[in-house]
Each structure stands twice: as C-alpha cells, then as structure tokens.
C-alpha cells in the first residue's frame, strides 16, 4: 500500500507495503505480517554472517550519502572490548524528504527490528534512535512500539531468549537541521551543541561517547529485515539500471505535482515514469521547469535532464546531480527560480552551525546577494561573486552544509541565468523590498 495513495502498479512495494495500515503498527499486527522473524534468524547467525549477507545485497545508505551498509558495519572492531553503539538517524530534515517519517508512523516495528539486527551485527548492546523534535507523531508511535517490544522480551537483557542484550533508547532532537549530520548527531546525544566533528577519527573508531559507533538512516535499517528474510540475492536482483544500485528506494515527491507523496521503486526506474505515471505529472496546463532530485542539497536539474535520467545513484550522477535522500522537489513553469534559490540559501544560512568561516559567512552573504538581486538592486558582477563564494564554500569545511548551499546556487545560475538577468536588468518587478 502506498501512502497517501494506493500503490501504483509500477511501484515495487517492500518497505511501504503496510503504509496506511494501522494494524501493522502494533506488535501483534507486525508479528502477524512476518515481523521479528528476521531478528530471530539473525540471533542464530554470527556477526560476520549478517554483515556478509548485507554486503552481498548491495544495500547502500539511504540517508543521502549512499555508502555501502555492509562495508560500514564491517569497520566496527571484531572484538567487543568496550561498548559499541548503533545510532539510528531519524532526524529527517532535508527539505523535500518525508519518507522516514512514514516508516516510523506506519511500521515502527520494522525499524525496531532493523535496529535490533544491526545492533547484533556490530556488537552493540544499545541503540539510540535520534528523532527530530518536530516529529511528534512518529515519536509517540515509536515510543509505544519500543515499550511493546520490551514487554514482549524482544528487547532487553535477554532479547528473544537469546541471552543477548539489545536496548533501544529514543532521543528527541530540538530543532537543528545540522544534527542530521552523523558527527553532529553524536554530539547532540552527548548533550552538546550539534557541531559536526572533524573526521578522522571515524565513528567506527571513536564515535558516540568516544566508543565504536555505526550510524544508519531509518530507511536503510528498515530494509535489513527484508534482506535477511528473503536473501541477499533477491535484494540484489531488484535493479533496473546499474548493478551498483540495488534494491528499492522510497521516494518523496512534493511541489508542483498532481499526486505528491511517497512512492517505492526498484533502483534504476526511469525518472520520467515516476514523475508522470506514478505521481500524475504537472498540474493541468503546466509544464515542469526544474526538478531537485535528492533533497534540497543537490544540484537542480532541468526538465530535460530529469526526464532522461534513470533513478539510481549512477543515473542521477550521470545527469550532473545526486540521488541524495530521494526527496524530489518539483517546480513548474510558474516558479520564480531566483526566489526559490534565495529561499534555499536562507535555509542553509539559518541552519549553519557557524563553526567554519566559509559556511557561516558564505551562506549569509549568498543569501544577502540573492536578496539584493530580488530587490532589483543586483549587478552583473553578482554572478561572479556568487560563483566565487560558492567555490569557497565547496569542499573546504568540516561538514557539507555549505556545499549544500552552493549546489542550488551554482546549478541555478548555470541553468536559469536568464531569470537572474531579468531582475538585474530591471525587466522583472522586484520580488523583495530593498534592504
């Protein structure tokens, strides 16, 4: 079942099968649907065997970076000489992305099961699930589910009678986009400001509380029980494009589109099918102008680029953007691109943790220059100024927040330059009052 729409015949429904099915939220409802079988199976397997299975499936991190999940798990020390931790990243804050929210709202036990399996696989006795503060409903649903799982003995000192301890703690964020960055998240759990940390050391060496730590996204972890149940070969076979991108992907679609919502597709599905057949295409009488395919942090695609792309990590990269979190922001021909790029820059300026100069100053100046252009006070030199700033904001900071601000600005100037020109030439009514 899709949500909020019935699933489309071209979807491949795995993780989203029970979206919209309230009964699947309860422990018994989940167990009736095959829930916790994979965890039982995992408890009978060695850590190495689970890691190998996940490696063989080709599963890659669904939070945005696309790092191979099994490989990440294999970085954890083989011997457990001090506490190991799993952190589940449920801080979903990337504009355009709202899939993890649906996983938690409808299938909380799928996430708990995935976390439990991953904890066992990396030798962790405790998992922290970091849920963004604004997600009040997912928090309530997840709290109830964790409580149920403890009451049934699935979690706790003797998980499913295995003699292994698996604890799960929900940790509530408090409004900071940057805490979705894995090292900022660790600081936030430790009771600190959410400033990203310099890597190395990588989390598997010195992570949460200085201990070996693995951080995975909600969707990644929710896919794990399916892989154990149905096998790595089944998962790997879900692939239409490049063999490096396997499995299914939850896609959030929003903006100027007939049927916004979440969809699940096999990796490599043509983006045109997703936009027109599944999500119903543009509003009546409109055409698409721009598509941001991976949450707001990736380069903007033109309609032509998007409509010729295959939707997987390589397919989107080939067209000059990134799959990211697969949050598709669709903009039609009514959209003022300069205004929306300004709005995105403002987002990053607001969310910068302000540790790195390039980001703190760069995001703010980018925003102000765009404001000036929108107020009709722009100059020709502003193009070069924005591009120079963006270059100084890319690849030069502790985390990639400033790169994320530069991506829409640079791609926006490249692909929609005439809209900037119109404001600068005074051919377009100012959209903002002069500052």
């Amino acid at each position, binding site marked *: 079942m899709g949500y909020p729409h019935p699933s489309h015949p071209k979807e491949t429904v795995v993780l989203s099968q029970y979206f919209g099915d309230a009964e699947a939220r309860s422990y018994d409802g989940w167990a009736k649907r095959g829930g916790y079988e994979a965890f039982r199976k995992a408890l009978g397997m060695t850590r190495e065997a689970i890691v190998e299975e996940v490696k063989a499936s080709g599963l890659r991190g669904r939070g945005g970076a696309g790092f191979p999940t099994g490989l990440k798990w294999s970085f954890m020390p083989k011997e457990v000489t001090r*506490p190991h931790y799993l952190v589940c990243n449920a801080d*979903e*804050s*990337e*504009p*355009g*992305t*709202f899939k993890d*929210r649906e996983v938690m709202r409808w299938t909380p036990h799928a996430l708990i099961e995935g976390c439990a399996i991953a904890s066992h696989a990396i030798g962790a006795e405790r998992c922290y699930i970091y849920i*963004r*503060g*604004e*997600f*009040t*409903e997912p*928090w*309530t649903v997840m*709290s109830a589910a964790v409580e149920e799982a403890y009451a049934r003995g699935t979690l706790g000192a003797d998980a499913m009678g295995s003699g292994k301890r698996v*604890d799960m*703690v929900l*940790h*509530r*964020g*408090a*409004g*900071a*986009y940057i805490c979705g960055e894995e090292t900022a998240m660790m600081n*936030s*759990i*430790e*009771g*600190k*400001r*959410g400033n990203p940390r310099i890597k190395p050391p990588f989390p598997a060496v010195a992570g949460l*509380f200085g201990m070996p730590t693995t951080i995975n996204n909600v969707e990644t972890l929710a896919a794990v029980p399916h892989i154990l149940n149905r096998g790595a070969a089944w998962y790997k076979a879900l692939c239409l494009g490049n063999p490096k991108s396997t499995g299914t992907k939850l896609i*959030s*679609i*929003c*903006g*100027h589109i007939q049927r*916004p*919502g*979440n969809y699940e597709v096999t990796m490599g599905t043509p983006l045109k099918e997703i936009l027109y057949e599944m999500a119903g295409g543009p509003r009546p009488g409109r055409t698409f102008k721009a598509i941001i395919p991976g949450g*707001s942090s990736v380069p903007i695609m033109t309609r032509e680029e998007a409509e010729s792309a295959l939707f997987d990590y390589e397919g989107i990269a080939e067209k000059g953007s990134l799959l990211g979190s697969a*949050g598709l*922001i669709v*903009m039609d021909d009514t*959209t003022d691109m300069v205004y*929306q790029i300004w*709005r*995105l820059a403002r*987002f990053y300026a*607001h*969310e910068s*943790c302000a540790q790195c100069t390039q980001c703190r100053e760069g995001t703010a100046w980018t925003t102000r220059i765009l404001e000036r252009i929108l107020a009709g006070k722009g100059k020709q030199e502003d193009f070069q100024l924005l591009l120079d700033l963006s270059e100084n904001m890319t690849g030069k900071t502790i985390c990639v927040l400033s790169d994320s601000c530069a991506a829409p600005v640079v791609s926006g100037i490249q692909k929609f330059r005439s809209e900037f020109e119109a404001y600068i030439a005074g051919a377009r009514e100012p959209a903002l009052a002069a500052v």
Partner: protein
Amino acid sequence: MSAHSAKGGHDTHAAPHEPVFTGETRARLERLFAQYPTKQACLLPALWMVQEVRGWISEPAIGEVADVLDLTPAYVKGVVTFYTMYHTHPVGRHFIQVCTTSPCNICGAEDVVKALLQATGCGELGATSPDGRFTVIEVECLGACGFPTPILVDDDFIESVTPDQVAGILKRYP
C-alpha cells in the same frame, strides 16, 4: 502525550524559581540516567522536561538543570541557545510553527502565515497575541513536504493547511 510534550502553562516573571526536578519529574530524570553513560547526555531530555512543565526555559531553570547534571550554567545556556525548539522567553498558550521552506513556499505557505498572523492577532512573527493565546513562528522544513502546508500547534502536527482552514483550526485551541 509523551514525556517530551511541549504543552504546559508558563511562568510569570520575577517570581522566585520553584524547582522543576522534584517528585515525579525528578524520578523521570533519574530513570533517564540509566539510559546514558554520562549525566551530560541527559541534557536535551532534561531541557524538554523543563519546557514541558514551565512552558519555557528561564535563567534560573538553566541554573537548576546545570546543578542536577553537574554542568555549569554557561555550558547549559550554550546548548539551549543552539537548538531552536527551546524557548528562552515565555510564549503564548499555544505555540504555532509554520513551515515556509521552498517545497511549502511554492505551494502557498506564505499565505498560510499571513492568515495565521491575522486570525491569531499576533500581527508579526514571534510575537504573542495580546490575549496571550498564541505565538506564531516560521520554521524551516517540518519534514512533511508532500502535505503543504504543515503546521505544528503545540504537539499537534496538522498537514495540508490552507488559509481558509485557519480559523477552524484555531477554534480547537482555546
């Protein structure tokens, strides 16, 4: 709802600080200590508790949190001010957050903001209505972009809000 509800009344000014961490709230905090290897890690949950009980986080409350977690008030204040959901001054009885980031913006979020500011009597973002009932703020991405415009009224997450629905929604929050 949960231990982390954002609801609750709020302090009047200048009254002597009445400790938050007594009785059941204290017991809840102590149960949390078992879930983290350090007391410091209980800082975000402890701040949520203060906000739940008092509606906002005052200077004396910061001092109390520092005290119960063996931290300094300056450190706690540094953390409080990093996170946008902690209120460092009193807010209206009902706190309204409206998403206006790009995906909602292109679907009409600015009109929802205007309707809310007018119907609540708040007049401007961040201000509290003269009757003390509402405070409205603009926030960055609430993570429900497919359902524009999402708003949070206290702990109630409301999707697909349009300007004409605003008055009806507000009626539910006396």
